[in-house]
């Protein structure tokens, strides 16, 4: 064994204060308020920031673009129905309704800043729940989570770009929280239905949630089938209600569904973005676009069931496994969704901090992968500029750097899988994972 490993253990025993979960509510609130102020004041004093960020493909896609939202607001204030006229708006009708109230800049800034700060609070709550459940001292203390989210550049930039994904992020995190506090409850199903309404992909997450609820209920001897049925019914009912209201307010027409969800599933707005899809839908590959459409949609869904089975399938799987499964789903969706943005990256990287106990078995330290990620994120606009601004590069440049970005996300995700599998193995064999004698090898 080398010095490195021995020293790791030594450091841990030497500096227990670094990782001990101390709770200091005042500090936590101070940090959250600072984060809120940062989110609120920058767009107020530098209003140009939104326009700059919204024009970048990293923050805005046709699906969540603030410009198209403004266009839709303009249309509806001039008594035109944006869901009937043209194909500009791809925001769900209820979001549009919401933004009608927040039309002037200040309330909108306050709303989005609040939403994002709530995201941070939800993360803290989730972390607390995982920590209490696991009874593990290696989880981060609350103030670290608060500081991490409050000053996370990805989160800040998402808010500055006025991306509507912030709302979805908040709903999703709240749903996870509700799920963590009561996996058998129906509130998480309602929230997940809202998330599915907002972003389409939300319904993927009910699969791990339902399986976990089923396992837990059958273990506790409650009517498992009944609970699953009730959950599905709640989910569908909420979705129906939301779609029904949308149907009504968008002028008694289902054209909004085609605009909001059809665009995502059929990838109708072909613009470059962070993801893998767009390149394959360029004109050269026109003959295959139906084929690619099927493959990419399949690809985004295909991992849901196997990963759920692997991590929640066993008898002794805990809520932590369930949250981990959902999080890995988020990571896979980042790679495989049609219109990924930095906002999706933000939720994925912000949740990474919840799985502190897995850090010890990672091949690449989180500091290394974060550094790699930020390097690529800063290079992305450069490559985009070379293509679109300077006109000296071409689509291959931007797609190549996008692929690198995806590759790093995949490496980080598979590293976490490997760490999780190792720890699960140690746990199942009753071995102390900190013991040095044992080393699992991936073959």
């Amino acid at each position, binding site marked *: 064994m*080398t*010095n*490195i490993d*021995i*020293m*790791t253990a*030594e*450091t841990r025993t*030497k500096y227990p204060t*670094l990782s001990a979960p101390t709770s200091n509510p005042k500090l936590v609130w101070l940090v959250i308020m600072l984060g809120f102020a940062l989110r609120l004041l920058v767009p107020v004093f530098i209003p140009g920031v939104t326009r700059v960020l919204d024009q970048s493909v990293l923050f805005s896609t046709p699906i969540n673009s603030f410009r198209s939202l403004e266009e839709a607001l303009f249309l509806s204030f001039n008594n035109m129905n944006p869901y009937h006229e043209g194909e500009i708006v791809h925001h769900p009708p209820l979001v549009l309704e919401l933004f009608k109230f927040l039309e002037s800049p200040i309330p909108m800034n306050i709303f989005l800043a609040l939403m994002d700060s709530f995201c941070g609070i939800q993360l803290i709550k989730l972390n607390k729940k995982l920590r209490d459940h696991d009874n593990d001292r290696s989880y981060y203390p609350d103030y670290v989570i608060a500081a991490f989210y409050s000053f996370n550049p990805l989160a800040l930039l998402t808010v500055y770009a006025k991306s509507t994904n912030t709302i979805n992020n908040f709903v999703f995190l709240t749903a996870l929280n509700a799920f963590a506090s009561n996996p058998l409850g129906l509130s998480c199903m309602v929230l997940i239905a809202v998330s599915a309404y907002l972003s389409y992909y939300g319904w993927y997450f009910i699969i791990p949630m339902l399986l976990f609820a089923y396992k837990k209920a059958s273990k506790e001897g409650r009517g498992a089938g009944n609970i699953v049925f009730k959950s599905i019914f709640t989910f569908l009912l909420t979705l129906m209600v939301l779609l029904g209201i949308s149907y009504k307010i968008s002028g008694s027409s289902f054209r909004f569904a085609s605009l909001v969800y059809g665009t995502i599933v059929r990838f109708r707005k072909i613009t470059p973005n962070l993801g893998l899809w767009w390149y394959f839908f360029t004109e050269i590959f026109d003959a295959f676009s139906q084929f690619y459409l099927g493959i990419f949609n399949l690809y985004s869904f295909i991992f849901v069931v196997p990963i759920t089975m692997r991590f929640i399938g066993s008898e002794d799987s805990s809520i932590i496994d369930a949250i981990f499964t959902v999080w890995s789903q988020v990571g896979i969706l980042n790679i495989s969704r049609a219109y990924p943005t930095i906002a999706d990256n933000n939720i994925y990287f912000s949740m990474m901090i919840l799985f502190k106990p897995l850090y010890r078995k990672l091949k690449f330290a989180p500091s290394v992968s974060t*550094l790699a990620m930020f*390097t690529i994120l*800063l*290079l992305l606009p*450069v*490559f985009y*500029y*070379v293509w679109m601004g*300077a*006109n*000296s*590069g*071409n689509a291959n*440049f931007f797609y190549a750097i996008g692929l690198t970005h995806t590759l790093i996300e995949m490496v980080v995700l598979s590293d976490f899988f490997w760490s999780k599998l190792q720890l699960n193995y140690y746990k199942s064999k009753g071995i102390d994972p900190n013991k040095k004698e044992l080393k699992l*090898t*991936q*073959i």
Partner: protein
Amino acid sequence: MSLFEVVQRQVRQRGMVPKLVKSLPHISLLLVILSFVWITMLPMAGQFRHTYISENALMPSQAYSFFRESEWNYLRGYREEIYRHDKATLLERNAMVKEWLGEIGYKTAILNYTEPLTGIEKPTLYAIYHAPKGDDTEAMVMVAPWHTKEGEFNLGGAALGLSLARYFHRMSIWAKNIIVVFPEDGQDTLRNWVNSYHTSLDQTGGSILSAIIMEYPSGGDSVDYIELEYAGLNGQLPNLDLVNTAIMVADHEGFRVSIHKAPRGQLWANDYGSRLTTLVQAVLDYGTAGILPPPGSFGGNGCEAFSGWNIQTVTLHAVGKGERDITTYGRVVEAIFRSVNNLLEKFHQSYFFYLLLGPQSFVSIGTYLPCAALVAAAFVVAAVSVLLNNANINNSGLQLSTFMVAPSSSKVLIVSMLSFLATLASSVTVCLLLSKISSHHSYSVSSDLFYHDLTYRYCIIPATALCLLPVVTSYFVKMRASRFINDVARFLYSFSLYCFAFTLVAMMLLHFSLSALVALAALPLTFIRYGPASNKHNRLKCAMWLFISSPFTWIFALGIMSKTNFQLDRVRNLVQYFRYGLLQREIQNVIDWMQDTSLHEILNGPVNVLYGLISGYWRFQNWTWFFLSISWIPAWLSALFVSCFDVRSADYDVSEEKKNE
């Protein structure tokens, strides 16, 4: 995966990790050497490619050119008239030419331009021929500046511009509009016209596809060869197809083409030496493009004015007296126009990034990029090496361990990060301030005390004096030995090197030459070792490395070089055909030159370079100076701070703690 495991185990069992870590500085140096080897390999046969026309529609030299004897008479007439009026003011000359162009049938207009700082009026005359057959959406531009980049009166060029304009108007083949521009010079005035064309001009002829700048200062009829210039600002080059077309057309008319200042004797050469010289000169030319001398003092290559608007531009400079005549030169321009006229789409050859090794050979981005990537990688490796305690001079016997690598407290991270941000912020502030100053103070070319003072008293001399700071501080800055100080130095230094490497990588694609040149010039930053104040020898070494890698040292060197008649080709000649007689002659040349030129004139060089840098953005949207202010200068400042730290060995605290236990 299992292979990876096997390798990993072997590496661990043989104890290679500490050895590898200790040798990281050497690896970093090795990468730089590899990059040099790479660049010297590029001109070897098999590494580069022959140029070719990728867009079939261009069809260069496929049509018979009629710009011959009968047009010569018109040309002589125009030249005679312009020659008679060469003492006339610009306004009078413009009025005269405007009248002629109007008679030919062009729509003429004059764009008034007053130089913002000097207040001199330099109106630009331009004329548009709306092609009857075209759809009036695209245009080709012919520029005949009244003065060439050397400041000579562009007599032949202006006459050619007029006679070609007259000749073009009689042809019925045009599918694109033709615009003829007569700016006072190919620098700020032309740039102002290009900017106005895209923003405020009333008379326009659609989006400009290409621009040809004609410089023919001689009043005679014969030309020897054509010097082609094409490097734009910010690493932008014209599409290789246009350069190829120009070279092919010129070749077809019997011209030799010189690129990157190749002298007459090298125009027929195509050996390793000539290609390497052209390559190195190309990198230098691209990297320094846009660092233009102040307005009124001429310079630049004309292509800078069109940069940033997606206009493919080349400058054709007629040199010497030889067998070809002025109409042959005119036919070259005509043939380029007719080729571009054939285009159905925009220029879209895959090559916007290339290095020319000669008029007919090039290397594409995939082949040359690794050389800049290797230097940038050297900085990343150096950053890792610093992080692993290699830069601490006391640490030769230190065992590698996680305890040594991880920061001793989160305070370390915060302090080092904040100090780096402070360096960055101050560097950016000072650079912006200098840029601001340059936009408020005019520059008089002959003797400018203000900018002389700014350059020497406020930039170069203080920066050079700062290099001595590590030595000076070693006498009176004593710090308490602690792990904290070591860690701050380590993280600050490592982080600044990493950020520098990152900016180099980001720049690599946009502006290869600048990235490579800056990386090489700043390389000594990676050699700096921090240590205790008592180690005077190390402090001296630090001062030396800091001096060599200082941006201001290089600005000074570049300025001096620009004022000398240094030619890379003479070095090539000396190396390739080495004889003592030749060496003696070259040395004699240098001595003669030094006797002939005044020191004041030479010292004006750095002033010009600094002015070109700091005024680059508001004059030409050239961001070289901003790039330096976020990459090189903060990295240099951080290295300066770090080398002033009084640092003990990194295991200081450990040994103390062990004693206590």
